[in-house]
């Protein structure tokens, strides 16, 4: 093992990676309904390398750490998810810069940067039936709870609840981006795989968090 340089950041990244690996079949099945079924496989193959290389990832600072993770992802995950998740990690890393510790405000700013990156890369926004439909409201909620004085654990729990609600609510949306979009109206009634993944990740991050 290594000495944890920035335990909170490492915990979040590791939890995301572990969630992707643990849910390969579930995420794949969700994508198979109106997509092509590779989301689970792609995420698991990419993030399992992050876990395998875990100790060796450069921890000079948070920015470097996240950018290295991003490179692993884009170099290994094909399809839409590689560029989307890779961009998210890159942008979060750029926002973190040479910090070696991250405050609650920093965390929100990094998540906002990640969201902007995804929007630009995917030409997508809330309502298009993508992971943004869970991620954006969850980050909004996180920021609001923190601003209202909630502790980290409480704020994360609230954000995870929102992520889950909004992931469920993607059932009502018509997919406008990604492979599911080709099915038009037929995408109504189905969950977006990426949004569900965000919800599960948020729940696991909140569940294991200790203030």
């Amino acid at each position, binding site marked *: 093992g290594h000495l944890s340089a920035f335990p909170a950041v490492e915990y979040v990244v590791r939890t995301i990676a572990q969630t992707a690996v643990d849910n390969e079949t579930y995420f*794949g*099945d969700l994508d*198979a309904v*109106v*997509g*092509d*079924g*590779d989301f689970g*496989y*792609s995420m698991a*193959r990419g993030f399992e390398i992050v876990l395998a290389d875990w100790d060796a990832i450069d921890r000079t600072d948070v920015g470097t750490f996240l950018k290295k993770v991003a490179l692993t992802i*884009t*170099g*290994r*995950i*094909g*399809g*839409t*998810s*590689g*560029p*989307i998740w890779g961009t998210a990690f890159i942008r979060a890393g750029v926002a973190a810069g040479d910090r070696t510790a991250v405050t609650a405000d920093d965390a929100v700013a990094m998540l906002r940067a990640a969201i902007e990156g995804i929007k630009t*890369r*995917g030409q997508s926004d809330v309502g298009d039936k993508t992971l943004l439909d869970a991620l954006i409201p969850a980050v909004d909620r996180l920021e609001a709870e923190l601003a209202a004085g909630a502790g980290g654990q409480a704020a994360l729990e609230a954000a995870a609840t929102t992520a889950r609600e909004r992931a469920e609510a993607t059932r009502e949306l018509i997919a*406008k*981006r*990604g*492979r*599911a*979009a*080709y*099915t*038009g109206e*037929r995408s109504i009634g189905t969950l977006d795989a990426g949004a569900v993944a965000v919800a599960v990740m948020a729940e696991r991050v909140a569940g294991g968090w200790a203030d």
Partner: protein
Amino acid sequence: MKKLINSPDSVIADALRGMAAAHPSLAVDLENRVISRASGATQGKVGLVSGGGSGHEPLHGGYVGYGMLDAAAPGEVYTSPVPDQILAATRAADSGSGVLHIVKNYTGDVLNFRMAAELAEDEDVRVVSVVTNDDAAVEDSTYTAGRRGVGGTVFVEKIAGAAAEEGADLDAVARIATHVNEVTRSFAIALHAGTVPAAGKPGFELAETEVELGVGIHGEPGRERGAMAPVHDLVGYALDVIHADRPVAGDVLVMLNGQGASPLIELYGAFAEAVAWIEGHGARVARSLVGNYITSLDQQGFSISVLSLDDELVRLWDAPVETPALRWGR
């Protein structure tokens, strides 16, 4: 699900080893997963690169060779390749005259090819991308992801490849590729879904009485489920959709393509119906391909692609080609 594989994780690597052994005309980089011409990039010629998810064989690796592609980047099954891999293919294809990226319109393909193009430009390789989107099954609107690139991609690779071989420059090759895409429409119908090895079960379930109309090449659902019908009616449905979108008129090039598990005897029967429909509408099948050219693993069904020919397109179509999957004139 039974498949001739060692494990879902080894499918691409195993197939690449097989391609390398089967085709001395190809150089197969097993590490970077790039298939290129064994002869290397042709000096003074624009390079052509395509790629995308695997499972559509012979697309794209089977079209690497004289008169078509210079290099191909096969991703995981149904998953676009990663930027580094596309960059490696681009390098293999470049002789200093620039490289055309032929990209099927899927978000993942578009994003990864775009990132690769940016990396290539950083290395001073000029890249122009043409995105194919010939699937008449999908509505084209700026509010959606647009149309999917399907069978017309084979036409683009052949015809743009011939133009490049003749010495056309990058802009001219891109122009002809764009033109081919614009004058082509495709439509596919599936009888039984293919099975992605990692998933282990068919991508969708169809009853004995059902077909999937307008299915995508990754088993994406189409516009609707329809009733199973004689091939005459299925082919008629497909051509009606194509015709409504872009009239089938004059001399046309037709590809009657199998999705992987429909036998050739059925594809010939379907082609006979296509020819009858087209001639019944006053057009003429001047050139054709019948067989498995852009598949969806072991999916049962067919697709039809119709391209409006002009003299230049006929000439470029007829030009010599020497690839594992398409070969004539040398």
